[in-house]
């Protein structure tokens, strides 16, 4: 009995080998693996039958065993959804590995080309050897599929056990499921692209983000209010401190060089090179420190491989070019060389491009609170605030317009932050409202402090006094405020994700 076609799709099953002496029974479908490779225009995908799943989590355990992952990393996860009212309550489970999307956002974001979508099987594969641990894919995926393993310094994810499939064996999760709720099947990509409604389910982000290929069979009578059970407790995200440090300082450098370029252009001659070199040093250090964010800093140089699609690669390129151009401009200031207006303008332009690339990194659908113009506004407002304050604090110029520029930056940042909060708080999107709840709840003190700093150091101080001491204090305070703000930017984003189980504390057992 071979090649018994089941279901309406192209799914083919291998018949179980019956061991002599075993009872011949209607075994639930096991060894569920397609018998053929996908043809052109097709790919493998998971099918999950919610009507069969009993939430036993065998798939999760089997996946961790298969891949030797520590308990805290689960390439397959089971989430719980609930709806209705007692006794007409409904509870269902979602089991999900990787959705092997038609348009994988992890792959598009990856700066080092660690991801490939297998052109035969459609499996989104990830190379732990190529990966540098930047974790940008973990920000890009709306389902939380790629997971960073701090012990290894690299990300990992479900690869549909394609090495088992090619041996004619079922993936670990499929094989483990006692209810036959998970299967692998073949899908026609063009047809799926035209209608992928079956990829959506309560408790899952919209499949629009990346066209998930996982087909989900839902219960026919799902209660309309069926939804996640894990939304009552919002956990802050990782702060990524090296990035907090780097982003603010590169933006400071952009602002500082813009001011220095204008000062130089308008005929100001006093020792501008001091300020230029100082800000360059800060930016340089920050770029170096930012590699500490990587799981594998030694391979930071790979980060420009993905220029064709990754904003992270483009940021690295943009900020490197800015650093080069700014060094050139600083050198010209130091040695009083001609052609500075043009060189300075070039440096500022490259800096602006670099900061824009920085901002674009965060404009991802999987992180709704980042995915708005406020991110761009926040980054440029930091430049406009800190650049002038820095130049004033280095004492090279007391020009009044610099103070006004800083105040404009402070006001812009203040407005951006308050408007963003109102936008979050009034949104009907769960992740956005959850972000606002983090800001107004757990992080209220930090948020208010940041606003206070913006008023004091960004508005009042620069306009009230031109004394060097005040300028230095204002700069230091404003810098601290922006770091605090950027830290809030990272910790208060609530990513899209699949529904989780209820337990609030994801206790990590060694």
């Amino acid at each position, binding site marked *: 009995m071979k090649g018994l076609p089941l279901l309406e799709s192209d799914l083919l099953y291998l018949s179980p080998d019956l*061991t002599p002496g075993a009872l011949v*029974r209607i075994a*639930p479908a096991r060894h569920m693996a397609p018998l053929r490779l996908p043809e052109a225009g097709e790919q493998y995908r998971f099918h999950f039958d919610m009507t069969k799943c009993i939430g036993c989590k065998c798939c999760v355990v*089997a996946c961790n*065993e298969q891949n030797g992952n520590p308990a805290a990393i689960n390439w397959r996860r089971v989430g719980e959804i609930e709806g209705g009212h007692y006794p007409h309550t409904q509870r269902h489970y979602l089991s999900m590995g990787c959705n092997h999307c038609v348009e994988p956002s992890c792959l598009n974001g990856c700066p080092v080309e660690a991801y490939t979508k297998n052109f035969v099987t459609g499996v989104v594969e990830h190379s732990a050897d190529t990966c540098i641990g930047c974790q940008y894919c973990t920000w890009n995926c709306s389902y939380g599929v790629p997971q960073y393993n701090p012990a290894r310094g690299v990300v990992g994810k479900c690869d549909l056990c394609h090495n088992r499939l090619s041996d004619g064996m079922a993936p670990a999760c499929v094989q483990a499921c006692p209810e036959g709720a998970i299967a692998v099947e073949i899908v026609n990509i063009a047809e799926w692209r035209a209608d992928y409604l079956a990829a959506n389910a309560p408790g899952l982000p919209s499949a629009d983000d990346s066209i998930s290929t996982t087909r989900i069979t839902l219960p026919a009578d799902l209660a309309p209010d069926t939804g996640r059970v894990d939304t009552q*407790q919002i956990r802050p995200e990782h702060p990524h401190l090296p990035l907090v440090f780097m982003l603010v300082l590169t933006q400071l450098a952009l602002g500082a060089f813009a001011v220095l370029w204008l000062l130089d252009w308008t005929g100001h001659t006093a020792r501008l090179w001091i300020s230029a070199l100082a800000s360059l040093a800060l930016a340089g250090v920050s770029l170096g420190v930012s590699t500490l964010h990587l799981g594998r800093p030694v391979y930071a140089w790979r980060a420009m491989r993905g220029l064709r699609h990754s904003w992270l690669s483009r940021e690295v390129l943009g900020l490197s070019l800015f650093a080069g151009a700014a060094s050139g401009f600083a050198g010209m200031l130091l040695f009083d060389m001609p052609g500075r207006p043009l060189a300075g303008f070039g440096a500022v332009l490259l800096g602006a491009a670099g900061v824009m690339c920085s901002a674009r990194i965060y404009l991802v659908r999987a992180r709704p609170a980042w995915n708005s113009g406020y991110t761009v506004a926040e980054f440029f407002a930091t430049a406009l605030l800190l650049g002038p304050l820095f130049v004033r604090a280095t004492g090279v110029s007391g020009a009044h317009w610099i103070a006004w520029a800083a105040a404009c930056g402070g006001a812009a940042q203040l407005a951006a932050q308050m408007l963003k909060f109102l936008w979050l708080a009034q949104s009907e999107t769960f992740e956005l409202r959850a972000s606002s709840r983090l800001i107004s709840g757990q992080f209220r003190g930090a948020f208010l402090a940041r606003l206070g700093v913006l008023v004091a150091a960004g508005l009042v101080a620069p306009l009230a006094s031109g004394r060097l001491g005040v300028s230095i204090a204002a700069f230091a305070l404003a810098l601290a405020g922006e770091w605090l703000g950027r830290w809030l930017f990272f910790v208060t984003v609530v990513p899209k994700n699949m529904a989780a189980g209820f337990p609030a504390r994801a206790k990590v057992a060694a």
Partner: protein
Amino acid sequence: MNIKRVIGLDNLAGDYAYARDPETGYTAARRIADQWVSTTCGYCSVGCGIEIGVRGNRAVAVRALESHPVNRGKLCPKGLSEHHTIAAENRLKRPLLRRNGKLVEVSWDDALGAMVERFRATQERHGRNSLGVISTGQLVTEEFYALGKLVQLGFGTNNFDGNTTLCMSTAVSGYKLSFGSDGPPGAYEDLERADVVLLLGANIADNHPILCQYLEANPRKTLIVADPRVTKTAMMADLHLPLKPRSDLALLNGIAHILVRYNLIDREYIARHTTGFEELVRFLDEYPPAKVCEITGLSEEQLHKTAFLYGRAQAGFIGWTMGVNHSTKGTETVNAICNLALLTGNIGRAGAAPFSITGQCNAMGTRETGFTSSMPGYRKFDDAGDRAELAALWNIAESRLPAKRGLAYPDIVEGAVGGKIRAMWIIATNPLVSFPNQGVLRQALADLEFLVVQDGYHPTPTTELAHLVLPAAIWGEKEGTYTNSERRVSKVNKAVDPPGEARPDFDIFLAVAERLGCRDELFPGWMGPGDAFEEWRRVSRGRLCDYSGISYEMLAGRGAVQWPLPEGTPFRETSRLYEDGKFPTADGRARFLCGEWEPFPEQPNTEYPLVLNTGRTVEHWHTRTKTREVPILERLSPEAWLEMNPRDAGRIGLRSHDRVDVVSRRGRVSGVELRLTEIIAPGQVFMPFHYSETNANEVTQSAFDPISREPNYKQCAVRIERKGATS
């Protein structure tokens, strides 16, 4: 610090390498074994066949034993990670003796010397029955058989019981009263062949998930689940009966009432194989639908639908677990289940059975061989013929066999409080988590002169209190047999050596016997579990639980075999009890028994307005001694939670994830995470009991079934407070 790792040259590729192996296919290299040892899962009583992958002396993987008839190539999440229990950090490696208040390592010689000396001294001073022994459902049958002889004949105390009294003793009592003997009549296959399956207080999706595939493979069935909570199993049902807490006996009587009223009964079966029908019919007059619906909270439509479905079924199956057993009316509820089966002739046929789904991996083994609530082979203490037969088999004076059962588990505990029990031996169980009303238990154990705890792990809340802790080998480290819920005997095999000086319980029992000087008499020539099994085959011959046709060789070849299998009879894949309608009672007939519904003992009031229900979750096993050692299971279910309906929470201003205290008249569980959910009815709350850190049994009550002595775990009155609101 690995500098190459910090800078990223090394990404631990070696630790995360994959490899291809003909046995496992492509998988994590660290899982690849040199050899696979087939055995039986050591958690629950489903009794799944499992193989342990061994490399060196290390269990590196497990997988389902494909040829095993029970689990069909599948395992639950606990089974799938079971090898992690073996090399756990908390394994006990050497005997520990309390000296100057502290447990210190001692030699086996000193440990056994101290144990026997102290037990003997206590017994000499306070009488033989001042020693209480609490056994388990976790050992192999051969160990239970040896332990029973050692305790009853060697130590000479009959105050011997197992943790099975916290679990299945109600089913045992119920079967004995209705059918004349213990022994679940049906088989798992019945789940697949029934057209109506009624599950009562049985959340098999969490507790016996591997049985769900039998239901999944049965397209004809109508599944009815009676449970006050919308469990995972209730979600699988075609018809969920959300009855009020412990109204099951009224429901069953109400169903019986409708069956009789509409003549949905098998009068021929009743006439030929039962007694007590007339009396039952008169009794059932008291349970008209309107009254039953008031008690149960169900609609008359739900009640009639259930009764008609079951009454008209070609093959009706009733399965139950702790929702029924954990009750002061448990035995009578089991009788009421048996009544339904007898009324409709739904017994002894494919798909038709009243069936207790047992808890522990070898609770059945101890029921058959254990010498606690009955003598080995389901022999009755009070039956002179049974005593004479057993004495002859053992070649001992009949007077050495007790003529009545000793104290049951809760009564041993109570006896310790009263000074009747002065020394105790606790084997492979952890009452400091699992026993109801922990305050009483703590008092009991504190009053003991000498407490010996034998376990694979230390510390557990119970070993911490012991005067002597004996390190035992666990699953994967010893040999024997388990018998599962459907009477199927499976071989248990050793894959690796126990850690340190830990020894199989079997060896410990023989060593204790040696010290006592009764080894040669009780265990003549015994070297290993195989000798115990051979003797047990002889002792069980001719009994309902007849093992005489089962041998280790047969188990190795067939994987698992159901009893009864008298020597010389042909092997059958699936056997059922009472196929011929003959029951092991004096007149060969089953009995209809009338059990009056009563409200559960501790009703809620204004001070304690909520009913606490306790239970389990799929990731953990009992008191979590083993599963807390498995990182992935801890990850998936790290701590206890309390389920409460939002309508109740609104009144006291609580929200999901708040930390709350559960308070009863007896105690307090502090800092449980609150889960607001419609899974639970208003007026009720639920929490799992696995977690020693937040132990539900601090608040449960000392109320026991008068016949089975099983605790009424499932209902007690509590109030919920914000953590630390009062204390």
